[in-house]
């Protein structure tokens, strides 16, 4: 049972990513979207990589670029249509906002 997690808030000023981290399980997929892109630089990402494969951590390409955020090589940059496809590949979707 894989769940798709859409995180839209920065963990520097909100609890959403931490709470997502607490319910994350190994097959889940995490998408950083909108201000969630700022989490690329947050320490919680290291904890998340302990729970799910780094291949399951993705970021919306133009959202990160608009915010001048550097995307590490091991994190996949995807488009909005990729995101829509992913919603069909998982049983559940949770938006953290």
């Amino acid at each position, binding site marked *: 049972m894989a769940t798709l997690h859409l995180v*839209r808030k*920065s963990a*520097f*000023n909100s609890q959403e990513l931490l709470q997502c981290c607490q319910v994350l399980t190994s097959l889940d997929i995490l998408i950083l979207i*909108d*201000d969630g892109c*700022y989490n690329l*630089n947050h320490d919680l990402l290291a904890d998340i990589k302990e729970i799910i494969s780094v291949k399951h951590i993705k970021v919306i390409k*133009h*959202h990160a*670029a*608009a*915010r*001048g955020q550097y995307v590490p090589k091991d994190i996949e940059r995807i488009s909005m249509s990729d995101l829509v496809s992913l919603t069909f590949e998982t049983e559940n979707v949770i938006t953290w906002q």
Partner: protein
Amino acid sequence: MANKVLAILNSKAPYSSTFGKDSLDIALIFGSYEQGVSLFFQGEGVFQLIPNQDGQQLSMKDYLKTFSAFEFYDIEDIYVCLESLQERKLSNAFHIEKVNILPAKEFAAKLKQHDCILRF
């Protein structure tokens, strides 16, 4: 507010709300009436200063580009909180010049020197 000085405290990231744009409008209005204005950036507000941003990619008017007009409005006192930068692992590379980076205590003391403070 003849010789009083206004402080505008920015605490929000640029694109997910209109706070940043609204605060810029206020700053430019006060500047155009030659009222003293200082800008403060704290917390997520520091994300408004980082370089290489491009609001066009979100189909939004990129108000950050207007920051370069500050000197024409005599807005020269710009302060950013050092701890907020460090927390977010940001360097002191900004898309505008003459930004004063202050440790939290000095940042607070500087803010207190102002007659009126608006937080966005």
